[in-house]
C-alpha cells in the first residue's frame, strides 16, 4: 500500500479546509495555507466521505467506488490511496488518530 497510508487507516478531512462544489467538481480552499485544489467527480465523492463525521478508511471508500462505478478492487484501492496520499501530503486530510480530541 502507499507510503504512509494503510487501507485500514481512518482518515478525516482537516477542519480548516473549505470545500465548494462547482458544476460537478469540487474546489478545496485550505484556510490555513491559502492553497486551493480541484477534485474531479470521483475525487469529490471521496472528499465527501472524508468530510463525514468519523471519516472513512481507504478500504471503505474503495468498496463504495467498486459498487458505484463497477470497477475492480485493485483499481479502486489504487485510486483511493493515491488521492488520499495526495490530500494528506497537502495537509488537507489526516489520520483520525492524529486529530486533537474534541473538548
Amino acid at each position, binding site marked *: 500500500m502507499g507510503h504512509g497510508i494503510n487501507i485500514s487507516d481512518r482518515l478525516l478531512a482537516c477542519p480548516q479546509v473549505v470545500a465548494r462544489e*462547482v458544476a460537478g467538481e469540487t474546489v478545496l480552499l485550505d484556510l490555513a495555507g*491559502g492553497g486551493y485544489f480541484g477534485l474531479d467527480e470521483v475525487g469529490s465523492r471521496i472528499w465527501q466521505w472524508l468530510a463525514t463525521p468519523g471519516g472513512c478508511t481507504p478500504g471503505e471508500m474503495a468498496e463504495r467506488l467498486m459498487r458505484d462505478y463497477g470497477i475492480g478492487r485493485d483499481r479502486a484501492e489504487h485510486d483511493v490511496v493515491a488521492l488520499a496520499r495526495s490530500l494528506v501530503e497537502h495537509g488537507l486530510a489526516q489520520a483520525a488518530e492524529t486529530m486533537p480530541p474534541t473538548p
Partner: protein
Amino acid sequence: MLTIASGSLPDPPQPPFDRWLSPDGRTLAEFFRLPAAPPAQAPVYLVRFPGQADFRIALAAPSSSDAQSAPQSDEVIAFPAAAGAAVESLYHNAIVPMLGNHRGGLFLHGSAVASDHGALAFMGHSRGGKTTLAGAFARAGHPFLTEDVLAIERHDLAYRVLPQRPVLRLFADSAAELLGPAGAGPTGDDRKREFAPGQRLPHASGPARLRAIFLLGPGEARQVRHDLLHPAEALGAMMGHGFILDVNDRPRLRAHFERIAALAQGVECHALDYPRDYAHLPQVIAGVLGAVAP
C-alpha cells in the same frame, strides 16, 4: 480616506505575515499587523510596497464595539518612501480594492473593456498584458472600463463591472504602440506613465454587464488561443487575483472564496494566451470577440 504623511514608519517588530510576489519572485508588497492603541479593538495593518510607500490601515471599529478611539471609517495613512512615489496609484489599485474585499465586495486584479456584447474582463499577473490589451481594445472602438482593478457587483441576477479611474498606466513600449508619437516619454524611463483617455483611447464611464472573463496565460502560446474553462478551473485561477488584506482572517477568506465561486459559476470564463507581440493584438481582439458573439 487617504492621508499622505511625511516621515517614515519604524520597521514592525514582527516579520510580515503575508507577501505578494511577482511571477519572477520579487516582493511587491509585505503585510504586517501593528499593535492597536488601546482601547481600540479594530486591527491595524501596515502594507509596505518596498521602495515606494508604506500604508498604515486602521480599520473602522466593529458596529458592536464599545471602543471609542477606533475610527468610525477605515483610515489610511500613506508614507511615501521616495519623492515621486506612485502613492495615489498604489492607493487606488491596491489599498482600495483590499478594503473593498475586506468589507464584502468583489475586487479582482484585472482590466475590462465595454464591447457590444457586454464587459469583457482580463485577469492576469503583473506585466501580463492586461493594460495593453485594454488599451488595444479601446483603440479598436471598445472603451476601457478599468485597467488594473476589476470592481464587480451583482445586479439584477447578473454581474456588472464598475468603471474605475479613467487612466491607462503604460510602459513606454506599449504607450508607443497604442499612441504613436503621443505616447513617447523621456528616454530611458522604464516606469509606467499615466495616460488620460481621449478620442484615441476612450473610457467607458458607466457600468456594463459582465459578459465573460478571460484569464491570461504566460504568453507561451505560439498563436492566439482561447479555451472555455470549467467553473472549478476558473475558480482556482481567479483566487490568485484577489486583493486580500489579511489571509489569516479565515471567515473573510472563506467569504471571498464563496463570492469567487459564485462568480465562476455565473460568468463564462476562458483561458486566453497569445504571443506577447503587438502584431498579434488584432487577432487577439478578433478571437475574444468571436468567443463571446451570440
